[in-house]
């Protein structure tokens, strides 16, 4: 939307219409300046010099305008001072400094008013309208534009009429509901601009029109006007040329003619750099990055966006920066570099938040604007209609004659455009379907890889957990053989009491063998369940045993990777819970995830070497009336408020790149809420603790 509005303000350039080459003019000015005395002529020459150099050497333009202002003040030459202020404002306008711009222009307006210079007043009013338009304040923009138009009509200033029509057209064009009306205004300005033979004016108008049609998805009309604009710009080194190339590039990219689009946008970037127009370099780079991306040239797109990011950040162009972040996020997603994708997604959210605040206030005033606009609309009509009525009556006769012919051609054209649109939509649909399938399969892969990642955490723990019971099974069974042999010896000797003692030991050992055998069995089963994919079945489960098992597995898993890791483990199980109907392998995954997270954070805090810090992880269960509660608490550094609301989002991780998939908590959330109809919540105090509480309903 904003892109549409950007073009409006270029109109201010219109005051300058060169028919000589830029260098010649500057040379001649300098020649005059050297000779001239400190009089009003010198003020005017300095102003003209500022006007001529504001595109190529902005700093010099500011210097000339400031000199002119000081001299005019000395001479009490009010009109000169007002003009100088206008060009000082112009410098800040190109620089993107809205506050300084408005300040200088309001001062200039006051001065013009004090000497009742209507052309000056109308000009500055129009400029201020454009400034508000750029800032998105539609109502104020409309007010100033209308005042400007009224005065321009009064004094018959065609240039001003055209620019104001254009501003109003762009303001209307911004809203979908009034875009058609916007087009009407722009088209109305065209004949005036052609009559004035002002290059900047009609290049901008063609850009506006192309952009308007492109926005309405009428690409043929859009390309028609873009081509007209490019031809009209004659490749001159003006800001308007930067725009026409960038927007034409966008238009061609939309129709899939990427080579042409890229060459146009490269030209746009090159020119913006040459003219040192910072914001425009960023905007043109953004456009070029979009096109590379659409053309699937990911490396070029990435490099271009990155360059744009730096420039736009420095220029403070939030809206464009937002689009850049979005582009970067998409690129990293395509490259399957999820941490970076997520990083830019976060930046995008943050900048959206800050823009959103502005947008809300805009929406409110837009509601009023709908009403005021229609009132203003009738004012404009009154102003312009009287004249138009006379013209119209004359033209009507002619129009009727050619109307039929034109009507027929238009209908054919319209039918063709409709057909093209239909075809393009079909194509877009196919692409969308394909993207959706890709997305789904990526998602499945990711879930699988998260399962495998947590399986890896488990494997080390499992090795340890299985070797230990095996140690007992092997050795006790071996022992029992020896003991039984000894027992036989004792029986042979007739030492029945000794034989009985040995038999008791053998029986004890058998119990141990059985116990450790079962222990190994349940570990292997658990591992198989953990890696199993597909439908999961709820079964009555001892949640305390499950929690305890995974507390051990999680601990040993981590310990296997990092044998300096250490923590206290505190458990507090409510034994009245009994069996709970749940999917054991899913619940195990959740518990393992919460537990390994807790271990991770206490481990990290331990590394800070805080005196007296004892890492501790607590797992507790509790039966309430109609639900059970499982809590996993750690005394790590807690969760900062800034990330609190994101912890359950997919791909969000605070671990360094490559250490976490960022899917653990998001999967846990799905398992608890969707799979079990429960809730999972985190509470935390920064620097002290984090606690995850799962609540599961029981019947």
């Amino acid at each position, binding site marked *: 939307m904003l892109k549409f509005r950007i073009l409006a303000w270029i109109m201010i350039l219109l005051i300058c219409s060169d028919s000589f080459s830029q260098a010649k003019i500057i040379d001649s000015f300098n020649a005059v300046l050297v000779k001239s005395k400190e009089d009003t002529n010198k003020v005017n020459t300095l102003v003209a010099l500022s006007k001529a150099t504001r595109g190529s050497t902005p700093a010099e333009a500011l210097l000339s305008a400031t000199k002119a202002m000081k001299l005019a003040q000395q001479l009490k030459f009010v009109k000169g001072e007002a003009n100088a202020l206008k060009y000082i404002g112009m410098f800040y306008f190109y620089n993107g400094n809205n506050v300084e711009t408005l300040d200088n222009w309001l001062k200039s307006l006051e001065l013009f008013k004090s000497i009742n210079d209507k052309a000056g007043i109308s000009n500055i009013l129009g400029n201020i309208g454009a400034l508000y338009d750029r800032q998105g304040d539609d109502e104020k923009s409309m007010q100033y534009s209308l005042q400007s138009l009224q005065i321009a009509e009064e004094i018959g200033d065609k240039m001003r009429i055209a620019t104001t029509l254009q501003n109003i057209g762009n303001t209307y064009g911004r809203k979908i509901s009034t875009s058609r009306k916007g087009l009407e205004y722009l088209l109305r300005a065209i004949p005036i601009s052609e009559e004035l033979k002002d290059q900047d004016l009609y290049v901008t108008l063609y850009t506006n029109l192309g952009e308007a049609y492109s926005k309405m998805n009428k690409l043929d009309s859009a390309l028609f006007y873009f081509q007209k604009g490019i031809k009209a710009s004659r490749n001159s080194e003006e800001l308007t040329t930067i725009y026409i190339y960038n927007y034409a590039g966008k238009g061609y990219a939309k129709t899939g003619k990427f080579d042409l689009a890229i060459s146009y946008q490269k030209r746009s970037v090159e020119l913006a750099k040459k003219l040192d127009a910072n914001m425009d370099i960023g905007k043109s780079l953004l456009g070029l990055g979009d096109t590379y991306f659409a053309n699937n040239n990911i490396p070029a797109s990435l490099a271009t966006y990155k360059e744009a990011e730096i420039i736009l950040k420095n220029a403070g162009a939030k809206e464009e920066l937002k689009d850049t972040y979005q582009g970067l996020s998409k690129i990293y997603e395509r490259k399957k570099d999820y941490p970076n994708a997520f990083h830019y997604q976060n930046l995008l959210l943050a900048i959206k938040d800050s823009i959103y605040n502005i947008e809300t206030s805009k929406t409110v005033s837009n509601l009023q604007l709908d009403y005021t606009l229609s009132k203003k609309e009738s004012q404009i009509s009154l102003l312009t209609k009287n004249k138009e009525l006379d013209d119209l009556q004359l033209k009507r006769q002619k129009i009727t004659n050619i109307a039929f012919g034109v009507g027929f051609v238009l209908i054919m054209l319209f039918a063709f455009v409709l057909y093209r649109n239909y075809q393009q939509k079909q194509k877009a649909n196919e692409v969308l379907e394909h993207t959706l399938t890709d997305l789904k399969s990526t998602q499945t892969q990711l879930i699988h890889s998260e399962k495998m990642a947590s399986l890896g955490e488990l494997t080390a723990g499992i090795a340890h957990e299985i070797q*230990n019971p*095996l*140690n007992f099974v092997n*050795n006790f069974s071996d*022992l029992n053989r020896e003991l039984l042999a000894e027992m036989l010896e004792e029986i042979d000797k007739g030492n029945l009491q000794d034989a009985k003692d040995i038999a008791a030991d053998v029986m004890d050992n058998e119990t141990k063998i059985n116990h*450790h055998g079962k222990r190994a069995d349940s570990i292997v089963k658990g591992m198989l369940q953990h890696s199993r994919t597909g439908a999961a079945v709820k079964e009555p489960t001892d949640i305390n045993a499950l929690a305890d098992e995974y507390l051990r597995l999680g601990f040993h898993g981590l*310990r*296997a990777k990092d044998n300096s890791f*250490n923590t206290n483990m505190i458990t507090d199980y409510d034994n009245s819970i009994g069996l709970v109907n749940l999917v054991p392998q899913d619940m195990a995954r959740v518990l393992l995830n919460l537990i390994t997270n807790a271990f991770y954070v206490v481990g990290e805090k331990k590394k800070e070497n805080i005196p007296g810090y004892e890492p501790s992880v607590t797992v507790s269960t509790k039966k309430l009336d109609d639900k059970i509660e499982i809590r996993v608490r750690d005394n790590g550094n807690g969760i900062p408020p800034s990330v609190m609301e994101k912890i359950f989002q997919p791909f969000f991780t605070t671990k360094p790149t490559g250490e976490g998939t960022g899917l653990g908590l998001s999967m846990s959330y799905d398992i608890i809420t969707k799979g079990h109809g429960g809730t999972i919540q985190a509470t935390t105090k920064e620097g002290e603790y984090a606690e995850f509480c799962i609540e599961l309903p029981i019947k």
Partner: protein
Amino acid sequence: MKFLVVDDELDVQTLFRQRFRKEIRDGGVDFVFANSGEQALAYMNEHHHEAVLILSDINMPGMSGLELLGKIKQQYTAPTPKVMMLTAYGDAENYNQAMKLGADDFLTKPVDFTLLREKLML
């Protein structure tokens, strides 16, 4: 001869007592048990002149066997007790680290008691 066995698995005590029942009965050896590294250190503080050989697990809650190994080799020098690691982790990293910290031997679980007996020269 006195052995200090450090392991968080309680059944290890029964296992060692039965495996070495003859040696214990003959009075040649004596076994003391600790459930954690911390307990083992506490025991050493009181009886350091007694323990002849320490057999320690690596993976235990709280102080790990490797930490215990490091502390013992640093703190008790006259003479330094022998320490043998007994662990379910036979991987190179654990082995190398144990050796670096001065372990005298390294056996993996399940424990081969015939081998252990040879090593202890019982």
